[in-house]
């Protein structure tokens, strides 16, 4: 698989996932280089009232620790972030996180649309959005916004998803750049990392 758009202009990767995405996420986090240059910002649907355990479970598999950011924390290169339980996670223009307890969006808090849309406004064409397996349409509008702002969009191949509602919803409303298996998403991210090392 060759990726035409790979270059070192990107400044962040944002990943959305829900039901059936845990395995894919852990595969990705365990197979990227430790020196992966960009921040990876993840918004994954999770139990609202279980604050602890999820970040730890992801950290065990990940090549670098997963961080649940505090409100107004700055986004740093090469770190892996996860939206905390029961908060929406926005990305502000100055590349800081802003959390919120506003109403659920698409029945979800954190909502993937909120994280994706606000990252798109903040990073514009310097953003890569990846949407994985999931059982509702949260994230579809976010992916559309990323595309409209000139960012690069990738969805997990619906054929491979445990539940394909989420990537399918995104594909329906946006011309997504790549539809990839988890294996190829990993290849993509490794290729991408190489562009930053020279």
């Amino acid at each position: 698989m060759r990726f035409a758009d790979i270059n070192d202009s990107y400044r962040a990767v944002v990943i959305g996932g829900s039901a059936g995405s845990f395995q894919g996420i852990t595969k990705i986090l365990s197979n990227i280089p430790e020196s992966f240059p960009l921040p990876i910002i993840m918004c994954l649907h999770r139990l609202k009232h279980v604050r602890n355990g999820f970040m730890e479970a992801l950290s065990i598999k990940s090549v670098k620790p997963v961080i649940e950011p505090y409100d107004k924390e700055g986004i740093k290169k090469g770190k892996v972030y996860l939206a905390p339980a029961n908060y929406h996670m926005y990305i502000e223009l100055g590349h800081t996180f802003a959390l919120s307890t506003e109403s659920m969006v698409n029945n979800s808090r954190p909502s993937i649309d909120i994280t994706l849309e606000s990252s798109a406004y903040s990073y514009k064409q310097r953003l890569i959005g990846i949407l994985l397996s999931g059982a509702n349409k949260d994230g579809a509008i976010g992916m559309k916004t990323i595309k409209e702002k000139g960012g690069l969009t990738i969805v997990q191949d619906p054929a491979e998803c445990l539940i394909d509602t989420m990537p399918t919803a995104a594909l329906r409303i946006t011309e997504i750049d790549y539809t990839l298996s988890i294996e190829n998403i990993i290849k993509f991210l490794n290729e991408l990392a190489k562009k930053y090392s020279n």
Partner: protein
Amino acid sequence: MQEIHIVDIRKLAETIKEKYNYDFTNYAMSSFKRRVSRILELYKFNNVESLIKKISESEAYFQEFLSEITVNVTEMFRDPSFWRVLRDKIIPNILLNHQKISIWHAGCSSGEEVYSMAILLKEMGILESSKIVATDIDPIIIEKAKKGVYPIKNMDLNDKNYLRVQGTEDFNKYYEEKNGYAYMDKSLVENVSFRIHDLVNGMVFSKFDIVMCRNVMIYFNQTLQNDVLKKLHESIFKYGYLAIGSKESLIWCEIANKFIVVNNEEKVYKKIKE
């Protein structure tokens, strides 16, 4: 959802500041923008310009706007582990040195946190001797808090949280169910003083043993967080406590060194310097 530009948001905030003396200029931008965008849809405004026009023409409409633009989503006993720490560690500690305890809910919204506190204090046998003040910027939401009437569908979550706090009673004894609503036991808040107060423009009005300001300052930018924290600091007795939301942090604030962390997991701070 239509895109809103930051200049429009600034114009909106300026208009409100001039006309009504509420200051939204230092609210956290992304979430504020999203709520404005929702208001445009809700009231079918074509753009921010028409919203600004309506706000400047009608004070009644501004009151409605105020209720929509402030965030009023909350639950009883949010973060049960926090409430256990409060009951088992913080409050007993205060009672070592004080006969009575005073609490300020800064930004109490529809009152769920106030009722949670009243239930906690009642089960500790100290509700009657406690002084509680609950404030919010929004007059409509303060009325709601006073009434203590909540959709019955919310009570499921509240009940679950209460169980996790390990309260001593059946949760349903604290409310009556009528027509799909839960009517909270009025005696819980008999001694609570509900007041309108603006954290941003308002004055410091008293001092307390505990200030509860959980998930309120997340809607402010760092400049405003700094200013508000100064006021909260002034409103706490020396060696009193400040509780903020589990993913909020004081470390970016100028006067953070006037507090120490008592419980990092639950974000409870103690004021150690004037």
